[in-house]
C-alpha cells in the first residue's frame, strides 16, 4: 500500500480542512515546528485506516478541535494491489465510513460502515481491540512499517504479525499436513500435560493419575498387611518363647516346692531346739541364782563373824585411849588461854604506836605548810615590788608628751615635704642682699614688701620677690633684678599646705622643734621598753595568776601553818624534828608488828591444837558409840542368819547345800552348750531361709501366672489374626499392586512417548524457524553496521522476533539493548524494522512512516541512515515527519511539505 493523499477536517488542531498531497511515490518529508500538527496528521491516517468509525469514548472525543463542536473527518487516497482506493471516515457526530475505488475516471463506492472499516483493515492484516483505539499490536503488517513519534522501539508484535513472519520464514510450517500433525501432537500432549509440563489433575487427569493413586493406596495397604503378617509371625515366636518360659518356670516351681518342704522341716527342728535352749537357760539361771544366794549367805555369815571380832577389838582399843585424849584436851585449853593473854598484852601497845605515827606525820605536814607559806610570802613580795615599779614607769611615761612611732614617722614625712616646698619656693624667688658700706635709704618699689628701708653696714637689707626686685638707692641708682617670670603662687600654696599639715601633726605636742620632739620621742620609746620589761617580769612571776590570787594563796598557807601550830603550841617556839619523829614512829610500829605476829601465831597454834584435841576426843567418843552400835547390829544380823541352831553346824549345812547347787549349775551349763552347738550346726536361720524360699516361690508363681496370662493373650491375638488370614490378604494386595504397576508402566510409557513426541517436534520446529530467521538477523546486523559505520555487533532476535540484544565482536557475552546508548538503540530498531520489512514485503511497495525518529542519532550516522532510506525508497514509499528538515534536504527527489505554510494558506 502506498499513500497518495491525506485530507483532514475538524481534527484536533485542524479545525478547517487541510490536504496533504499528492504524495511522491518515493520520499516525502512533512516538516514544521512543534505543534503545527505533524503527528496529528499521522494519527488521522492511522485512525482512518485501522479504527472503527463508530468507536466511542474519551479517546475518540479528544479528536475534536478544542472548543469546537465539529465531527472529525479524514479522507485517505491510496494505492493497493494496483488499485486506486479512497477511504473516508467521520467520527463522533453522524459517524460514517466509506470506501471507493477509482474506476473509469471516477470514484466508485466499494463499501460503507463496518464493512468499509473491515475492508481497509484486511488490506493491512489489522485487528481491533474490544474497546477504544487500536494500538500498534493491532496494526498487523503496518506494525513494522509505521513508527509514530517516540515509538520506534519494537516492544511487542501482534500474533498475526508473528504468524506472518513465521509463515514467511518457514513455508513448510504452513502446510496443512504439518498443521494437522502438530495439532494432533499438541492435543495428545494437552490431554496428559498442562502448558507448564505438569501432569494434569482433577477431572481431566490422565489415567495414570488414578492408577498411581490406586497404587499408593495399595502400597499403604501392603505395608499395613506386611506389618500384620510380621505381627502374626512375631506372635507365633512370642507364644513359642512364652511356652518355653512357662515350662522353665514350672520346673523351677517344682524345685522350689521341694526346697521349701525341706526348709520347713529344718525350721521346725530349729524352733524346737530354740525352745529347749530357752528352757535350759531358765533352769541354768535358777540353779545359778540358788547357788549364788547360798554362797552369798555363807559369805555374809563369815563376814559378820569377822566383823564381830574386829569390832570387839576396836571397841576395846577406843575405850583404852579415851582418858589420854581427855587429858590432852585440857592441856591444850590451858595453853590457848596463855597465848590469848600474851596477845592481848601486845594489843595494848597499838594505840601508842599509832599516836607516834600521827605525830610524826603532823610534824611533816607542819614543815610542808611552813615551806609553802614561805614560798607564797616571797612571791607575793616580789610581785608587789614589780607592780610598784610598773606603776612608777607608767607615771614617768605619763609625764612625757611625745608622738608614737607612727605619728613620728608622719611628722618626719610632713617636715620633709615642707622643706622641699620651702626650698622650691625659695628657689623661685629673686633675692637681693644689700650689704651697705654706709647708711642710706633704700626705696623698695618692687618686692614682696615695697617700702623704704634703712640700710646700714650692720643692717643689711635683703629683698625678695618673684619675677622682679626693684629698688632705688637714692642718689645712687635704681636697681632692678629680674628672674624667671614663673608664678610662685602654686609653690607658695604647696608650701603653706605642707606647713599646715606639719602643724596639724605637731598640734598637742609641747614643742614645735623637731629636734626636741625627736628627743621626747626617743625618751618615750625608752620608757616604753622599760615598761614592757617590767611588765614581762611581773607576768613571768605571776605565771598566769593575778596578784589577788597570790594574796589568797598566801593567806591559805598562813592559815594552814596556824592550824597545825595550834595543835602543838610548842612548835611555834621550837619547830619539831619531823624526821626524828618519823623514825621513832617507824621503829615502834615495826616492834609492835613483830610482837603481834609472834603472839598471834602462838595463839592460833594453841587454839588449833586445842580444837584438834577436842575433835579427836569427840571422834573417839563417836567411834566408840558407832562400834558399839555396829557390834550390836552385827550380832543381831548373825542371829538372824544362823537362827537358833548352833552357828557352826548351821554354817556347815549351808556349805553342803551350796556345793550341791554348784553341781546343778554345771550340769545346766553342759546341757546349754550342747543345745547351742546343735543350733549352730543349722548355720543361717532356717526360718529366714524358709521365708526366702517362700518369697521366691511366690514370685515365681506370680511370674508364671503373668506368663500364662501373656500366653493366653498372645494366643487369643494369634487366633484373631489367623481369622484375618494375613498372608492371603497380603498376597491379594500384592497381586493387585502388580496389576496396577503393569497398568502404570503401560500408561507411563504412553505418556512419556507423548511428551517425547511433543517436545521433539517443538524443538525441531523451533530449530527450523531459528534457522530461517538467521538471514533476517544477519540483514538487520548489516543494516545496523551501515548506519553506525563501525560494527556495533550482531543483532539477535527473541522467539517472537523482537530484537533482544547485540553480540559485539570480541566480547564474550551479548549486550542487552538497554545497555546501548539512546542513539544506538534507535539505530538498532530502525535496522530491525527495515530487515523485517524486507522479509514481509519483498514483492510490493508499502508505506514506511517515520515520525520524528532518529532524534538521538549523531549527524554522521543520521546521514548514513538517510542514505539507507534513499535506497529503501526503491521498495517503499517513505513518509517522514520532522521538525528539523535540514538533514533531509539532500535526500534525492524527495518531496517536501511545509505544514506551517500549508496551514497559513
Amino acid at each position, binding site marked *: 500500500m502506498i499513500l497518495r493523499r491525506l485530507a483532514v477536517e475538524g481534527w484536533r488542531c485542524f479545525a478547517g480542512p487541510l490536504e496533504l498531497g499528492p504524495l511522491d511515490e518515493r520520499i516525502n518529508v512533512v516538516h514544521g515546528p512543534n505543534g503545527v500538527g505533524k503527528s496529528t496528521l499521522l494519527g488521522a491516517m492511522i485512525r482512518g485506516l485501522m479504527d472503527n468509525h463508530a468507536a466511542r469514548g474519551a479517546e475518540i472525543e479528544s479528536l475534536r478541535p478544542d472548543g469546537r463542536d465539529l465531527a472529525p473527518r479524514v479522507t485517505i487516497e491510496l494505492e493497493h494491489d494496483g488499485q486506486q482506493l479512497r477511504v473516508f471516515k467521520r467520527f463522533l457526530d453522524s459517524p460514517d465510513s466509506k470506501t471507493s475505488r477509482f474506476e473509469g475516471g471516477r470514484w466508485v463506492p466499494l463499501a460503507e460502515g463496518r464493512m468499509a472499516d473491515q475492508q481497509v483493515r484486511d488490506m493491512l492484516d489489522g485487528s481491533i481491540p474490544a474497546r477504544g483505539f487500536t494500538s500498534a499490536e493491532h496494526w498487523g503488517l503496518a506494525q513494522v512499517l509505521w513508527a509514530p513519534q517516540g515509538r520506534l522501539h519494537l516492544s511487542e508484535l501482534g500474533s498475526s504479525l508473528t504468524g506472518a513472519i513465521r509463515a514467511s520464514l518457514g513455508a*513448510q510450517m504452513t502446510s496443512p499436513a504439518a498443521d494437522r*500433525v502438530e495439532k494432533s501432537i499438541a492435543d495428545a500432549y494437552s490431554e496428559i500435560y498442562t502448558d507448564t509440563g505438569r501432569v494434569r489433575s482433577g477431572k481431566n487427569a490422565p489415567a495414570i493419575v488414578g492408577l498411581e493413586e490406586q497404587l499408593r493406596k495399595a502400597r499403604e495397604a501392603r505395608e499395613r498387611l506386611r506389618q500384620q503378617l510380621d505381627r502374626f509371625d512375631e506372635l*507365633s515366636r512370642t507364644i513359642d518363647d512364652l511356652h518355653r518360659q512357662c515350662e522353665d518356670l514350672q520346673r523351677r516351681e517344682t524345685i522350689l516346692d521341694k526346697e521349701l518342704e525341706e526348709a520347713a522341716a529344718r525350721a521346725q527342728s530349729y524352733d524346737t531346739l530354740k525352745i529347749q535352749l530357752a528352757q535350759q537357760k531358765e533352769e541354768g539361771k535358777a540353779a545359778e541364782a540358788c547357788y549364788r544366794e547360798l554362797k552369798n549367805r555363807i559369805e555374809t555369815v563369815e563376814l559378820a563373824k569377822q566383823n564381830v571380832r574386829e569390832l570387839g577389838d576396836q571397841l576395846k582399843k577406843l575405850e583404852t585411849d579415851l582418858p589420854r585424849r581427855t587429858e590432852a584436851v585440857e592441856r591444850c585449853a590451858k595453853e590457848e588461854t596463855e597465848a590469848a593473854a600474851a596477845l592481848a598484852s601486845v594489843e595494848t601497845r597499838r594505840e601508842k604506836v599509832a599516836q607516834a605515827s600521827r605525830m610524826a606525820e603532823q610534824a611533816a605536814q607542819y614543815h610542808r605548810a611552813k615551806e609553802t607559806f614561805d614560798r607564797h610570802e616571797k612571791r607575793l613580795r616580789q610581785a608587789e615590788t614589780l607592780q610598784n615599779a610598773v606603776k612608777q614607769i607608767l607615771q614617768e611615761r605619763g609625764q612625757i608628751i611625745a608622738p608614737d612611732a607612727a605619728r613620728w614617722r608622719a611628722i618626719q614625712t610632713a617636715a620633709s615635704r615642707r622643706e622641699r616646698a620651702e626650698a622650691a619656693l625659695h628657689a623661685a624667688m629673686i633675692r637681693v642682699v644689700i650689704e651697705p658700706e654706709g647708711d642710706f635709704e633704700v626705696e623698695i618699689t618692687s618686692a614682696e614688701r615695697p617700702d623704704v628701708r634703712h640700710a646700714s653696714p650692720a643692717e643689711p637689707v635683703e629683698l625678695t620677690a618673684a619675677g622682679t626686685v626693684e629698688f632705688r638707692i637714692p642718689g645712687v641708682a635704681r636697681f632692678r633684678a629680674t628672674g624667671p617670670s614663673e608664678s610662685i603662687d602654686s609653690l607658695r600654696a604647696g608650701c603653706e599646705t605642707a606647713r599646715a599639715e606639719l602643724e596639724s601633726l605637731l598640734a598637742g605636742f609641747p614643742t614645735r622643734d623637731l629636734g626636741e620632739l625627736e628627743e621626747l620621742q626617743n625618751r618615750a620609746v625608752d620608757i616604753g621598753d622599760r615598761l614592757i620589761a617590767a611588765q614581762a617580769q611581773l607576768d613571768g612571776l605571776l605565771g598566769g595568776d593575778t596578784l589577788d590570787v597570790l594574796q589568797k594563796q598566801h593567806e591559805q598557807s598562813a592559815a594552814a601553818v596556824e592550824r597545825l601550830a595550834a595543835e602543838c603550841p610548842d612548835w611555834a617556839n621550837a619547830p619539831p624534828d619531823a624526821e626524828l619523829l618519823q623514825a621513832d614512829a617507824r621503829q615502834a610500829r615495826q616492834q609492835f608488828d613483830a610482837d603481834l605476829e609472834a603472839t598471834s601465831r602462838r595463839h592460833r597454834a594453841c587454839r588449833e591444837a586445842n580444837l584438834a584435841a577436842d575433835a579427836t576426843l569427840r571422834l573417839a567418843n563417836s567411834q566408840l558409840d558407832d562400834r558399839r552400835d555396829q557390834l550390836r547390829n552385827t550380832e543381831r544380823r548373825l542371829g538372824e542368819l544362823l537362827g537358833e541352831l548352833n552357828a557352826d553346824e548351821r554354817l556347815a549345812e549351808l556349805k553342803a547345800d551350796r556345793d550341791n547347787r554348784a553341781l546343778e549349775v554345771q550340769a545346766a551349763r553342759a546341757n546349754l552348750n550342747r543345745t547351742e552347738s546343735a543350733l549352730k550346726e543349722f548355720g543361717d536361720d532356717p526360718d529366714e531361709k524358709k521365708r526366702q524360699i517362700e518369697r521366691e516361690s511366690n514370685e515365681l508363681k506370680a511370674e508364671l501366672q503373668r506368663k500364662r496370662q501373656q500366653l493366653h493373650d498372645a494366643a487369643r491375638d*494369634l487366633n484373631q489374626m489367623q481369622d484375618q488370614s494375613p498372608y492371603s490378604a497380603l498376597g491379594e494386595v*500384592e497381586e493387585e499392586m502388580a496389576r496396577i504397576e503393569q497398568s502404570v508402566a503401560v500408561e507411563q510409557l504412553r505418556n512419556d512417548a507423548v511428551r*517425547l513426541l511433543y517436545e*521433539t517436534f517443538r524443538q*525441531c520446529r523451533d530449530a527450523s524457524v531459528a534457522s530461517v530467521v538467521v538471514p533476517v538477523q544477519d540483514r538487520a546486523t548489516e543494516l545496523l553496521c551501515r548506519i553506525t559505520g563501525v560494527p556495533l555487533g550482531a543483532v539477535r532476535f527473541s522467539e517472537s522476533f523482537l530484537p533482544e540484544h547485540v553480540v559485539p565482536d570480541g566480547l564474550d557475552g551479548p549486550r542487552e539493548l538497554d545497555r546501548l546508548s539512546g542513539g544506538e538503540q534507535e539505530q538498532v530498531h530502525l535496522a530491525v524494522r527495515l530487515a523485517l520489512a524486507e522479509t514481509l514485503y519483498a514483492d510490493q511497495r508499502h508505506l514506511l512512516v517515520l515520525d520524528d525518529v532518529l532524534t538521538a542519532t549523531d549527524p554522521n550516522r543520521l546521514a548514513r541512515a538517510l542514505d539507507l532510506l534513499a535506497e529503501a525508497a526503491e521498495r517503499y514509499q517513505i513518509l517522514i515527519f520532522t521538525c528539523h528538515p535540514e538533514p533531509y534536504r539532500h535526500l534525492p527527489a524527495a518531496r517536501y511539505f511545509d505544514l506551517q505554510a500549508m496551514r497559513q494558506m
Partner: protein
Amino acid sequence: MKFLHTADWHIGMKAAHAPAAAQRLRDERLAAARRVVEVAAEHQVDFLLLAGDTFENNGINRTDVRRVALALAEFKGPVYLVPCNHDPLVPGSVWEHPCWTEHENLHVLRAAEPVAVPGGRLYPCPVFTKHATADPTAWIDARADAEIAVGAAHGSVEGVPQDQPESPIPRDAAARRGLDYLALGHWHSTVVSYDRMAYSGTHETTKFDERDSGNVLLVEIAARGAVPRITPIHTGGLSWLSLDEEIRDDGDLARVRQRIETIDDPSRALLNLSLRGMFHADQRTELSRIEEIAAARDFLFHRIDSTGLFPAPKDDGWLADLPVGPLRETARRLQRWSDPATTDQRPDGVTPQVATRALLDFYALWRGGQG
C-alpha cells in the same frame, strides 16, 4: 509298600506374576490336590505322603486349610503330612487347625520320631522354623530296621548351587541313614535321579519357566533293601507357555500370531510372550493383531512384552513421505533414539522403549491423517 509321594503344594500361594489370574491359579492348585487324591485312589496306594510345604504360609486363609483337609480325607488310606519351612510347626500354624483331628486318616507328623506306616516305618523330619541350616535327616538311623524304612524331609540336596543353603541334605542321605527311600520336598521340579531318594516336585506348576513340574511320584518298594520303583504321574492342569520370539523378517510376527491362534484350551493356558528384534513401522498392524487375538481367545492369563522390539534403523520409507522440515526431523530423531545401539545422546529419562512408542504414535498420527 506302595505310596504316593507328593510335596510343595503351596496352597494359598500368591500370584503377583500373573495378577489377573491369581485367584484362579489358587483354585487350580486345590483342584490339582484333589487330582492327587484321585491318583492315589486309582493306584490303590497304601498311603499318601506329603513331604512338606503343603501350604504357602501359616497366615493363609483357614478355609483353604479346611479344603485341603477335606480333599485329603477323601483318600481311604492314611495320609502323612510333614510341616516344613513354608508352614513350620509353630504356634498359630495351619497345623493347629481342628480339621487335622477331625479325620482319622490324616496324620500331621509333629515330632522327629519314627512312625509305623502300612508296610514299614516312616521317619519324618518336621520343621519348626522358617529358616534351617542343619541337615533335617541327621537324627534318622534306620540301619537296624527290619521293616521297610522310608524318610520324609524338606531341603536342598547338596551339590545344587544356591546362595544360602537351606536344610542341606547329603546326596547319599538315604543310604547313610539306612532308608529304603527318602521322599524329598522343596524343589518344584521333579527329580528322580538320586539314589533311593527323589523330589516329587510341585503337583501343579507355580510359574513360567518352571521345568518339569506338576507331577507326583508313585513309589513302590518290594522289600527291605529293594530298589524303589518310582513312577512320575502328571497331575498339573495348567499350561504355562513362555514364548520368547525374535522378530527378523516380515513374516515373523505373522508366524507368532499363528502360533498363538493354535494354542489348545486357552482357558487353562497362561501365555507370556516376549518379542525381540527389529520391525518395520508398517508391521505395527500385525503387532496390534497379536494383542487383539491374545485378548480375544480368553487365555487364563496373557502378557505380551514388545519392549524388546525396536524399529528397523533402515526403515525410512515412510519418512520420505513426510514434508521436509520439523516433521521429518522429528521422525528421524525418534528413530535414532529408538535404536538401542544408537550413539546419539537421548534426552534425559528417554529409553529406546519410550522413543519407539513415540515413533509408533507419530507414525499412527501421520498415517491416520493420510487416510
